[in-house]
């Protein structure tokens, strides 16, 4: 009897617990899960919703929703995976010489008008891009790498590359456009109505409305070929433009939007503390900042090679041409202070140029210590002396390697205006280098101007950042190979030249088989060499930070994947 009572009570209790839970977790019917509203800060310019033309991040976010994904990435390992539901490409084969990639596509995925998506759509995408008639910038990118695309069958396309490279796989996936509604004459693509109002698409959402300067509205596509269970739960997705960053955060906290993919570091504590908000922090985030020091003579800028491929003598920077001065700079900077001051602690220090959290990051390489005494010793050794025993005045050269005697230890440091993070780095660097006898003329200039200065290679030093995602390959050829030291465009604007590093980079990039473990061993070696050379003084990578209203469930679990399985999301009504 007693036991029976217990059982009854227990079951009653259980029922009490379970019933409301079950009621609460009642997933809405497909298309009735409410609007996912994301606020973004990115200016009001939007290029085009045509993937052949789009070139800004807002458009590309929308394109990611309304077009099928080409390659599936495992959020846990960050590596491409075969045979998944959420991408068109389910298999690929690479030829022996690494030049030919054969991709296999799903055959059961259709455009919204019912037409199957086939390799002809990829072919059209490539033909349009390589014709040079489409005014998008993608057309200036892919043809650099790709030689030709052929389609042996509706579910296969073959991409032939100009050179073998371990970064080729994602480039070769290209993209798809509904070729059956696109014009035969590629020049007509530029002025299609489709560019502003794409009516035939194939992604998780359909395009619904573009309100210039306000928002994009997308609605669930119940025929989405990549959906789990074939269902798309949310009603739709709204991408809300808020041109002021503070107001963006305030409006998110007030509930005007319910998810946000970038929160500036100085507002992250507020967002974390706010009621009804959940957050996700992860590494790597999307940007890493660095301090670049010029190797070459800034008064006579030269490319690394002449037209015939012979090295050009680029001269030496009077200060930074000497490795000891570069080391002194690195040792004199208290990077922990910089992380605290510039990104409010939401950053991870870097030991070289690989972002912590990516597979190329050399875990065993120690950080550069903060050691002002060693920095001073290095400066003394390099012939930079405190001639008047006055720490407030800059040191001068006395037997320095590349500077005539009497040259003050003084340089100009640029960063782009309007970025409070880099402005903070600049002020701290200026301050900390002054402690060991530098005079830093810190200037902020407009973004287009700083790019002009950097490309012209007339700078002493600058602070800037590079984007980095979870999918970034560790290959740094574009940044640090001497081949990229091209006046006017190349990204190796500091004129870093280390033949050993050049050779190792080429080896890792073209490694037969592209085995990540073997490649990583080479990149670890490169990192160690570059930490000694210091083309950049490594600073930090900002940690990633997403936030969402607790009403948005289940939301994403993976950094770098802000919309993971968005077709299952819904907004709780209460």
């Amino acid at each position: 009897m007693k036991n029976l009572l217990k059982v009854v009570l227990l079951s009653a209790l259980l029922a009490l617990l379970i019933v409301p839970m079950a009621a609460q977790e009642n997933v809405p019917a497909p298309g009735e899960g409410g609007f996912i509203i994301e606020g973004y800060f990115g200016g009001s310019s939007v290029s085009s919703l045509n993937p052949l033309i789009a070139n800004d991040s807002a458009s590309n976010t929308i394109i990611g929703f309304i077009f099928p994904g080409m390659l599936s990435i495992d959020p846990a390992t960050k590596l491409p995976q075969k045979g998944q539901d959420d991408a068109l490409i389910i298999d690929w084969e690479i030829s022996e010489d690494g030049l030919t990639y054969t991709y296999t596509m799903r055959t059961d995925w259709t455009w919204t008008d019912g037409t199957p998506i086939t390799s002809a759509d990829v072919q059209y995408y490539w033909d349009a891009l390589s014709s040079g008639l489409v005014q998008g910038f993608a057309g200036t990118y892919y043809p650099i790498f790709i030689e030709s695309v052929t389609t042996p069958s509706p579910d296969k396309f073959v991409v032939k590359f100009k050179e073998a490279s371990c970064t080729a796989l994602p480039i070769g996936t290209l993209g798809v456009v509904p070729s059956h509604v696109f014009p035969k004459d590629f020049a007509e693509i530029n002025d299609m109505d489709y560019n502003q109002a794409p009516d035939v698409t194939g992604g998780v959402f359909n395009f619904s409305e573009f309100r210039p300067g306000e928002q994009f509205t997308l609605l669930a596509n119940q025929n989405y070929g990549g959906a789990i269970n074939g269902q798309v739960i949310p009603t739709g997705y709204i991408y809300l433009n808020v041109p002021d960053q503070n107001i963006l955060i305030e409006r998110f906290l007030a509930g005007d939007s319910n998810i946000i993919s970038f929160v500036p570091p100085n507002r992250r504590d507020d967002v974390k503390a706010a009621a009804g908000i959940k957050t996700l922090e992860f590494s790597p985030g999307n940007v890493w900042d660095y301090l670049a020091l010029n190797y070459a003579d800034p008064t006579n800028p030269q490319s690394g090679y002449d037209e015939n491929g012979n090295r050009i003598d680029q001269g030496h920077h009077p200060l930074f041409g000497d490795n000891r001065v570069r080391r002194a700079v690195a040792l004199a900077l208290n990077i922990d202070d910089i992380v605290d001051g510039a990104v409010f602690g939401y950053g991870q220090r870097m030991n070289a140029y690989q972002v912590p959290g990516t597979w190329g990051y050399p875990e065993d390489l120690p950080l550069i210590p903060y050691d002002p005494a060693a920095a001073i010793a290095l400066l003394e050794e390099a012939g930079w002396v405190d001639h008047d025993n006055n720490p407030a005045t800059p040191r001068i050269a006395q037997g320095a390697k590349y500077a005539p005697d009497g040259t003050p230890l003084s340089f100009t440091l640029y960063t782009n205006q309007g970025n409070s993070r880099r402005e903070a780095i600049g002020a701290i660097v200026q301050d900390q280098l002054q402690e060991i006898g530098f005079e830093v003329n810190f200037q902020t200039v407009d973004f287009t101007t700083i790019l002009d200065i950097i490309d012209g290679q007339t700078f002493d030093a600058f602070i800037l950042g590079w984007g980095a995602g979870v999918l970034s390959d560790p290959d740094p050829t574009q940044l640090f190979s001497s081949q990229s030291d091209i006046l006017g465009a190349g990204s190796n604007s500091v004129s870093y030249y280390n033949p050993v590093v050049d050779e190792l980079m080429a080896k890792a990039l073209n490694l037969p088989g592209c085995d990540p473990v073997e490649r990583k061993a080479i990149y670890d070696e490169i990192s160690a060499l570059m930490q000694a050379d210091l083309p950049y003084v490594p600073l930090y990578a900002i940690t990633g930070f997403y936030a969402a209203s607790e009403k948005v469930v289940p939301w994403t679990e993976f950094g770098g994947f802000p919309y993971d399985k968005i077709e299952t999301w819904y907004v709780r009504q209460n």
Partner: protein
Amino acid sequence: MTTSPSATAQSIAQLNTEETIVSKSLTQRALSRLSRDKLTLTALAVLIFLTVMAFLAPVFESALEVSYTKTNIREKFAPICIPALNVGGDCNPKHILGTDDLGRDVFVRLLYAGQVSLSIGFFAAILSLAIGITLGVVTGFYGGVIDDFINWVITTLNSVPTLFLLLIISAVILRNPDLARGIFGGPFALIIILGLLGWTGTTRLVRGETLSIREREYILSARALGASPTRIMFVHIVPNVFSIVIIVLASDIGGLILAEAALSFLGIGVKVPTPSWGNMLTDAQTYFTMGLHLVILPGLLIFITVLCLFIIGDGLRDAFDPTSTD
């Protein structure tokens, strides 16, 4: 008018003294009116106080042993700290008004920023006044093609919203590091830009006044006596239009300080690390949850300064208004 040269000379002398007497009495009346205008006087006192404080920045810097450039991350966002008034509690009394996002002293930083903002407002206003008076007198005096041309320039400039002109010109000059360095260094470039854009109103005002003055007898006589046009313009006309123009100076300075703040908000103002009230306010907006005083203080200083300048401008206008009665 047929008079002998000597008689003319005599009448000029007479007229000149008359002019002086009239203007003196006008000025005296204005001054006496001003001396009773408590609001204007208070505004003037506050403005002078702020200016003196701003230019004493180095003194405060050494007295308080703080620096407006020295960063100290461990002391960032320190609150306002005045132990004598029991404000702030357990805090560092060196930083009277606390510290900013990099631990720099806000008090001396505000003072240095004040130097920059006030100088921009003042010198840009002087520059636009100088251009405005010169062009106004020249066009009013000569008329004809010159007048038409300057008028066309004014109409053209006035037809584009100033903000866009400012943005475009700033984009050119401030973006160009070669121009932004050296003689155009920092705020100086902004002074030139703002000064070059602000003169049209003054020119119109002065031109109108010159038109009426040039027909007056003493100018006609001076002409008849063979005085050179330059002499007539600068000796006889300029002093007479000066009083009208000086009145607009105060409100001009105020407007220019606001313009600098607006440009900073849009990302083209005084460039950090040089502080100005405008860029301090813009920067601080990002941190308003961490240090509200960082937003309030520069905003308040801009507001108070501009308010004082506008009140002074108003007071001067009322005082010099010949139609107003005592």
